[in-house]
């Protein structure tokens, strides 16, 4: 038996979480370093996965399979395809930055009980989320996936509800109330989605008799497992609903702005750049593979929802007064692009969508983390409280600008490639939708540039005048992300090489081929 690399990649942060949580109350700094070390070690393992993955090899690689709960037909089955590898790498890459960026976010203000250890809890929860996200990307057993998809909510919930920005315009008590409101909203939305998925998971078991993604997909492909059309559609809806809440897709998105607004910037990055990716990833892996016919049936509606997300998210982002809410609505708009790319059912669309997931993770992390640094300096999330920051803190302003430009998909930065691919992929099949979606880009330019203009340019506000520039720790967080944005913007081939074979497979699962270019078709 070979070394269970995938299990190790997920188990390491889990162990790190336990170890971090166990650090005594007085040794907060040790807990932070421990968490950072665990996340870096996980990154090393994720890179090993990346290296050992052969894009042209079998569909699922590094597979592991052990019996788990035979009575439920559940096997502990892991395996990664190109899409999963890319997202695992993204997750493992972002967590060290999240840990570093949140270095002081959970330092206790007052000393509560001797046993009250918020710092240890904060970092342990982040690592726990990482472990569960990674194993969700790896699981090829629907049940295993479901378990971690759901269990992820609990640490996430405590991260949102338990830790927030230090400064709040209405004082600490109001902040706590709003935080717990946001946390509960997050949990209830996702729990309802998850429970409907549970019904569908049970239904899938009744129909298929086991939970193995490969077995079911194979049996569906060769016709040995027949699903009645209505059954397939109901099951698809059960799964899709959960993923659409997680992603989030309009009109199930309303938890995201609250959650991102109330949590600290690193946690907000964790939500939108890491956890939400599980939703869009699962659409690709589970919805399309298990229910190809129903996916095609639902495509028109989903595309329209995605389109609404794109335009609506962007419009609301333009209107926000709160920096974090603005980024949240921008993310909703971007998730619309991802979902659109997935369900356009073209290989450019789906490659673009996968690439988009990676790029969006990096660009949002850059923008949001810098925004977090900004907010922690001034103690306010309101755009109107800033002005002229670029004169006082040029590096901060510069990195903020690059993060913003990446968000609006400026050519030369990574998100441009993916957005372009998604739009091209959509346009070849659904030209009208592709055209309307481009408005999202225009609006993105508006909300990003207006945000930059209002906060960074203009006369220096007195409250901002003493603002220090980025510190060394903060630079360590931001600089690599920006380097990556530029690298992947100029040369995205390493990612697309890994992703493309998997996308091709998925396309063949749903029996789709790319439409021929019109010029060729006319010949």
């Amino acid at each position, binding site marked *: 038996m070979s070394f269970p690399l995938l299990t190790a990649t997920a188990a390491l942060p889990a162990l790190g979480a336990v170890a971090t949580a166990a650090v005594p109350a007085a040794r907060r700094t040790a807990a932070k370093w421990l968490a950072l070390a665990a996340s870096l070690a996980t990154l090393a393992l994720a890179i090993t996965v990346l290296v050992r993955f052969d894009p042209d090899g079998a569909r699922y690689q590094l597979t592991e399979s052990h*019996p*788990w*709960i*035979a*009575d*439920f037909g559940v096997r502990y089955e892991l395996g990664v395809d190109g899409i999963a590898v890319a997202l695992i790498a993204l997750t493992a890459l972002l967590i060290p930055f999240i840990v570093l960026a949140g270095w002081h976010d959970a330092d206790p203000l007052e000393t*509560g*009980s001797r*046993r*009250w*250890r918020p710092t240890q809890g904060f970092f342990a929860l982040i690592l726990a989320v990482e472990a569960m996200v990674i194993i969700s990307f790896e699981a090829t057993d629907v049940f295993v996936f*479901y*378990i*971690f998809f*759901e*269990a992820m*909510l*609990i640490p996430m*919930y*405590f991260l949102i*509800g*338990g830790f927030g920005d230090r400064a709040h315009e209405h004082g600490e*008590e109001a902040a*706590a109330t709003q*935080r*717990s409101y946001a*946390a*509960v909203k997050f*949990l*209830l939305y996702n*729990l*309802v989605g998850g*429970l*409907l998925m*549970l*019904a569908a998971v*049970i*239904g899938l*078991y*009744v129909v298929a008799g086991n939970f193995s993604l490969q077995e079911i997909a194979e049996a569906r492909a060769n016709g040995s497992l027949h699903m009645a059309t209505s059954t397939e559609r109901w099951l698809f809806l059960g799964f899709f609903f959960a993923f659409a809440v997680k992603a989030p897709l309009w009109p199930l998105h309303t938890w995201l702005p609250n959650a991102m607004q109330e949590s600290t910037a690193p946690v907000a990055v964790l939500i939108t750049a890491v956890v939400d990716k599980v939703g869009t990833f699962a659409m690709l892996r589970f919805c399309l593979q298990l229910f190809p016919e129903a996916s095609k049936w639902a495509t028109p509606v989903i595309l329209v929802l995605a389109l609404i997300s794109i335009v609506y998210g962007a419009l609301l982002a333009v209107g926000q007064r709160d920096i974090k809410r603005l980024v949240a609505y921008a993310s909703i708009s971007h998730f619309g692009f991802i979902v659109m790319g997935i369900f356009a059912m073209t290989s450019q669309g789906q490659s673009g969508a996968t690439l988009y997931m990676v790029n969006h993770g990096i660009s949002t992390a850059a923008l949001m983390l810098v925004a977090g640094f900004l907010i922690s300096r001034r103690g306010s999330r309101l755009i109107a409280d800033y002005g002229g920051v670029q004169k006082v803190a040029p590096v901060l302003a510069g990195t903020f600008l690059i993060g913003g430009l990446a968000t609006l998909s400026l050519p030369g930065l990574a998100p441009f490639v993916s957005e372009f691919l998604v739009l091209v992929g959509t346009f070849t099949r659904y030209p009208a939708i592709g055209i309307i979606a481009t408005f999202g880009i225009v609006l993105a330019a508006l909300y990003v540039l207006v945000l930059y203009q209002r906060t960074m340019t203009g006369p220096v506000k007195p409250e901002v005048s003493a603002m220090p520039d980025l510190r060394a720790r903060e630079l360590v967080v931001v600089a690599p992300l920006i380097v990556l944005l530029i690298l992947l913007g100029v040369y995205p081939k390493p990612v697309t090489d890994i992703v493309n074979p998997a996308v091709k497979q998925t396309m063949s699962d749903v029996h789709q081929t790319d439409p021929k270019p019109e010029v060729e078709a006319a010949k």
Partner: protein
Amino acid sequence: MSTAAVHSLWTTAAEPISKIDTPKIEYGQLSPTLIVIGAALVGVLIEAFVPRRSRYYAQVFVSVVALCAAFAAVVALAAGGYGTTKAHIAAMGAIAVDGPALFLQGTILLAGLVGLFTFAERRLDPEAHGNRVDSFAAQAASVPGSDSEKAAVKAGFTTTEVFPLLLFAIGGMLIFPSANDLLTLFVALEVFSLPLYLLCAVARRKRLMSQEAAVKYFLLGAFASAFTLFGIALLYGYAGSVSYARIAQVVDGTVTDVDPALANTMGNDVLLLMGAAMLVMGLLFKVGAVPFHMWTPDVYQGAPTPVTGFMAAATKVAAFGALLRLLYVVLPGLRWDWRPVMWAVAIITMLGGAIVAITQTDIKRLLAYSSIAHAGFILAGVIATSKDGVSSVLFYLAGYSFVTIGAFAVVTLVRDAGGEATHLSKWAGLGRRSPLVAAVFAVFLLAFAGIPLTSGFAGKFAVFKAAADGGAAPLVVVGVISSAIAAFFYIRVIVLMFFSEPKAEGPTVAVPSPLTMLAIGVGVAVTLVLGVAPQYFLDLAGQAGVFVR
């Protein structure tokens, strides 16, 4: 009645006594029950003869030994194959010794043992006049607030009778799911109900509430018993027998010979339907299913918390066991009649419990309504009418009972000057003050909510899977929706504990003795083990899924 019938009755009664055989009792196979009842009798003698000072220790010792011995006997029987190949009906057809019976008896005994630990806890209340006190009244007979009560407290009296009462209740519960004729069923019902009524009444604090709860429980329980008894009479009139097997045969039509004395009633379907309905009603009352749930919140709130925990866990196990046997062994031929009714009961129980729980402000009442919702989930498994249905219910009950006892044990720890602080507002910020206790309670709440990696999820999945397999997909959907509703109020408590600011004069968390710690520890361990690695126990429940007929 015709003359011939009267004559036959007369001559039967006048048969020579020599013809009655000595009943053949398989003492070994009944040993779990016999040990527990025997120990209960010893407990009564201890009350009579052992000096007051050493009674507590003697009672706890006897009870622990008895429960452990009885559990060992259950394990020995199961290992001897009585759960599978050698399953049969013992004691002249009165008691079934089979998989479900042994599994449930094992669960009840373990739950009873853990419950016993919480009964024996004496560190939570401050010492009264230099005597350690437990959760029970100094002298239950003295009027609350009276001089005699004060004198009893001053003298350091304790109600050590709770231990034999507990053992009697456990003894009855052991017979209840294994009863194989209706009379045994009824006797077992009374044997475990009467001690429970008494136990509800003997709280040390808030005695009036406790007594009120006991009276309510007793009155409604007496009604339910009357229904049960009436149902039994009607079924006897229909089948001419109280034996499960015989009634099932008459329902199936395999036995058609008519008892001359019952010529007018035998085979009359009206009697069958009414009798079955009344009998099931009595059991649904014990289970706490809507619309027979009215007693649950009041009794759960008023009873001493250790009793509530034990009752919520063990009664449910015993009553669901009996319900399963009744529906699967006696009334399978009536399946098409009872299934629609049970569908309706399950749906309103799931939804009703979950919805009403949202408005609760007292933690014990909240857990009461949650237990109602859980009864609904379990009913969904009962309705599956398959082997999977039985084993999923068995598994669910095993997981659920330990979560319940553990949760109520945590409730006993959170106290202020007036005893347990059960009002939810007082739990605000508990996570700040005692992170460990709050975290443990959060684990129990997550298990109640059915979050993956807890026993609650594995149980819920098993039950829903069985229901979906059995063609009850709409029930699964309702179950999932009510789980979502229920999740809301479990989460609300977690929010309160972790995200609310602690109140200035909030309750303190008492440091318990190792007994309660053990009870809570077992609860957490079982919750996590059944959640992460349920396979062994699912196998166990799967093997135990066949009723002997």
